[in-house]
């Protein structure tokens, strides 16, 4: 005699068994290691790869088939893209390909320097503002005042009182970007200060500098990194705008904004002069923003699995 292990249940007529539901959420697969991290967050991978390409272009610009980006060739002005001039030549006969590649250096230098400097300065001011209550009112009113001026206008004004150089462009954009970081850091610090683990650290006898270093700073890092990428992107755009309107990088240095400014008059007849630097600027900003969006997801404390 065999014992049936499965019993068939008679289904009353009119009653259908619900079909197997598909999994609404795919199981989250956590991959470990650096490559696993990139596969978990493809936007970080794409943005990072694009940015890496641009960095390599900037570093190895002299070895990528370029010629002197400032060499004039009046006889061969405004040539269309060809084997000789890959991206064409401008109205002074300079090779646009070389100029765009060298321009990458300016944009990345400005973007990365401004992101670093503005983040560090904003971090310091924001920490003081969040911890020293009496200074908070003064600092924040000053920051509000700075924020009431459009950043580009502020940068133009700052450039107007200094000489045009890449260094001055960096300083001007940094000053214009500091308020954003400061406000972010201050708000993060104020919310972190109320965290029970900070109170616990106080009752555990931890001194205030150590509380900032051990409990506050590490927890501001994630939003700071995300903010830094947005500032980097914004700085590259502002740098181009400043150069475009002639208030930024001096025209002797090839930067994307300068190339576009020079090609502006010929836009209707020779659009390639503006097109290539504009395309590079777009790609650079896109890369940095993708990286920022990806980092925002990856560093979200509610999804702290990879930290």
């Amino acid at each position, binding site marked *: 005699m065999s014992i049936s292990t499965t019993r068939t249940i008679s289904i009353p007529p009119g009653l259908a068994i619900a079909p197997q539901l598909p999994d609404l959420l795919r199981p989250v697969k956590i991959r470990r290691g650096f490559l696993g991290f990139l596969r978990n967050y493809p936007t970080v991978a794409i943005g990072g790869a694009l940015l890496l390409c641009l960095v390599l272009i900037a570093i190895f610009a002299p070895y990528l088939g370029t010629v002197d980006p400032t060499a004039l060739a009046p006889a061969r002005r405004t040539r269309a893209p060809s084997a000789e001039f890959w991206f064409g030549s401008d109205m002074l006969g300079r090779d646009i390909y070389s100029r765009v590649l060298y321009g990458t250096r300016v944009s990345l230098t400005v973007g990365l320097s401004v992101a670093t400097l503005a983040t560090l300065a904003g971090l310091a001011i924001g920490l003081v503002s969040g911890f020293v209550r009496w200074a908070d009112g003064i600092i924040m009113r000053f920051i509000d005042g700075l924020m009431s001026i459009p950043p580009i206008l502020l940068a133009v004004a700052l450039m107007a009182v200094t000489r045009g150089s890449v260094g001055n462009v960096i300083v001007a954009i940094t000053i214009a970007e500091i308020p954003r970081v400061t406000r972010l850091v201050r708000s993060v610090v104020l919310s972190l200060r109320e*965290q*029970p*683990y900070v*109170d*616990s*650290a*106080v*009752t*555990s*006898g*931890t*001194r205030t500098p150590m509380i900032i270093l*051990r*409990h506050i700073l*590490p*927890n501001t890092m994630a939003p700071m990194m995300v903010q830094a990428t947005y500032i980097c992107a914004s700085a590259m755009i502002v740098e181009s705008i400043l150069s475009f309107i002639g208030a930024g990088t001096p025209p002797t240095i090839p930067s994307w904004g300068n190339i576009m400014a020079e090609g502006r008059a010929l836009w209707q007849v020779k659009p390639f002069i503006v097109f290539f630097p504009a395309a590079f600027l777009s790609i650079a900003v896109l890369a940095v923003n993708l990286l920022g969006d990806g980092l925002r997801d990856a560093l979200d*404390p509610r999804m*702290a*699995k990879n*930290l």
Partner: protein
Amino acid sequence: MSGPLLQVNDLKKHFPVRGGMFSRKAVVHAVDGVSFEVARGETLSLVGESGCGKSTVGRAILRLFDITAGQLVLDGQRIDDLPPGSLRSMRRRVQVVFQDPFSSLNPRMRVRDILAEPIRNFGLAKTSAELEAKVAALMDTVRLPRDALNRRPHEFSGGQRQRICIARALAAEPELIVCDEAVSALDVSVKAQIVNLLQDLQQQFGLALLFISHDLAVVEHMTHRVAVMYLGKIVEMAGRQQIFTAPKHPYTRALLSAVPLPDPGAARNPIILKGDVPSPINPPSGCRFHTRCPSVFDRCRIDEPELRSTGDGQWVACHLEAVPEKSGPAL
């Protein structure tokens, strides 16, 4: 080493509320004249509804802010006016376990470093080997595996995190632990485990607990004495038996009658209080409970009752209990 471990005398904490630029400054009377004592090895529970100031009392004792008025005396020493330097060494003796086990632990620190922080700060271990041994012993004490030391808080469940919080509190070798709603965020089964753990630790180390809670079932299970707070004041304070079997203050009675019973068929006659808790910005005159008290009479609206002993260690702030010999009007 005689006398109470902690004495709180007429503690007041007022928070200024900033209105708009042109509005009058208001003051929240979060705690308005609270006095009690905690003996060594004793559990005193502070109960009351949300916003009655019980957590503020706990945070004042932890010296997380400066108090408005009153005295805090720990083991015969005033701690409310200590300069920061001497306050730090005092902090070791009073530790805290907070309600939310998810935000009480720094998400970026390993359990090992979380537990080592108070030990290092208070210089409780001379060598790194001693530190390591102490940290490991703490894990044993709260019944967590030692190999969990290298993990970060997000890898633990709520109950396990609360054990880590308790271990951190114990790391400072305190005499008093303020449990601010320490089990309120936990599931019933986990809650029971943590309550039992706290009781065991109290036995083992002779700890005093200030147990701040709104969960009367847990309070009844583990406390020695209970202080009932309403709108920043203690309305009744007594031993567990007296509070739960013979509450005297009308508010305590209402609070106890609101406790859900496990037997659905049991006869209950809950005292339903009307209205909301008045604003602590502008507390009622006289007895603060008079706006909702079922047995209110004229005197309550003018005259504020003081917390008076009715014998047997029971203290009540109610005009009905003004003359202990003469029995008050039947409620």
